[in-house]
């Protein structure tokens, strides 16, 4: 009886770790940028290349910063959700078109609808590196002071909106 106890305990510990591992996503790397000021940049706007967008323009507002591209398959999943959200008008969404061509990006917005207040164009992906982007789509929640409060890696889902993003935005807006 006692002899079998130790191997059984070791087995149960290993099972515990493996079970937990089933629910972890190895693609979700915690971002060191959460809690830090959003990196500054100045990028041309998609439909008016001569005007520039900078995160400074959004100071005083809580906003979503969504990195997307027309070549990105998962962006197609989240796009209708973003469109719906923009219709609700509850939080401004700024897009960043990452390593894409203007024509294709414009076509994408014409077809799927445009949820963005502004779309900045990061053609060579430099600003993406500053934001630690490694898997498009990625979405940042940025507070009134311009600090990154949350980063969603991968598409924005209804679950993520309900459980994380919307409560967080409400809390930040109340501040």
């Amino acid at each position: 009886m006692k002899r079998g106890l130790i191997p059984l305990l070791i087995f149960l510990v290993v099972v515990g770790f493996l079970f937990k591992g089933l629910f972890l996503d190895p693609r979700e790397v915690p971002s060191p940028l959460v809690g830090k000021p959003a990196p500054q940049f100045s990028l041309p706007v998609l439909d008016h290349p001569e005007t520039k967008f900078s995160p400074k323009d959004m100071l005083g507002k809580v906003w979503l910063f969504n990195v997307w591209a027309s070549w990105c398959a998962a962006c197609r999943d989240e796009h209708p959700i973003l469109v719906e959200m923009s219709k609700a008008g509850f939080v401004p969404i700024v897009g960043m078109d990452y390593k894409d061509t203007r024509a294709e990006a414009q076509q994408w917005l014409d077809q799927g609808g445009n949820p963005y207040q502004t779309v900045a164009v990061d053609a060579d992906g430099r600003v993406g590196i500053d934001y630690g982007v490694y898997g498009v789509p990625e979405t940042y929640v940025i507070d009134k002071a311009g600090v990154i409060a949350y980063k969603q890696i991968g598409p924005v889902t209804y679950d993520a909106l309900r459980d994380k993003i919307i409560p967080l935005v409400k809390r930040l807006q109340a501040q």
Partner: protein
Amino acid sequence: MTSIRIIRLLALLCALQVPSLLAQEAQPLQPNAAVEVQVERLSTQLRCLVCQNQTIADSHAELAQDLKQEIREMAAKGMTDQAIIDYLVVRYGDFVRYKPPFNPATSLLWLGPFGLLLAGAIGLFTMLRRRQKMTADVPLTADEARQVSELLK
């Protein structure tokens, strides 16, 4: 077939070999050898976040190429290895380093194997001790000693 012809043939073959010996992988833009060495050294120490189990040096993902270019530019500006790694860690976190640093979050990773080794050693030691006790000499009783000597007669 004269030997001269053979020699000529060999010379021709050697000449044909020369370009392939000189050929190298295409070096984009930067002809500065020191910079390339630094880029190469750093890119084997940094993780490609798209493929995760490859270094930037091994990966052909677009992000890895972009990061390599970024590193190349920083190296050309004369930044040290540590400064470049810090620059990337600020953006991508410690995960970007292929060799994780030692800190509270990674202590289990670094010390765990030694812990297991120690636990194994202790287990082995106690098991051997127990077994030794089991086989320890038990003195014969007088009766048994008599039996043995009778059998051995």
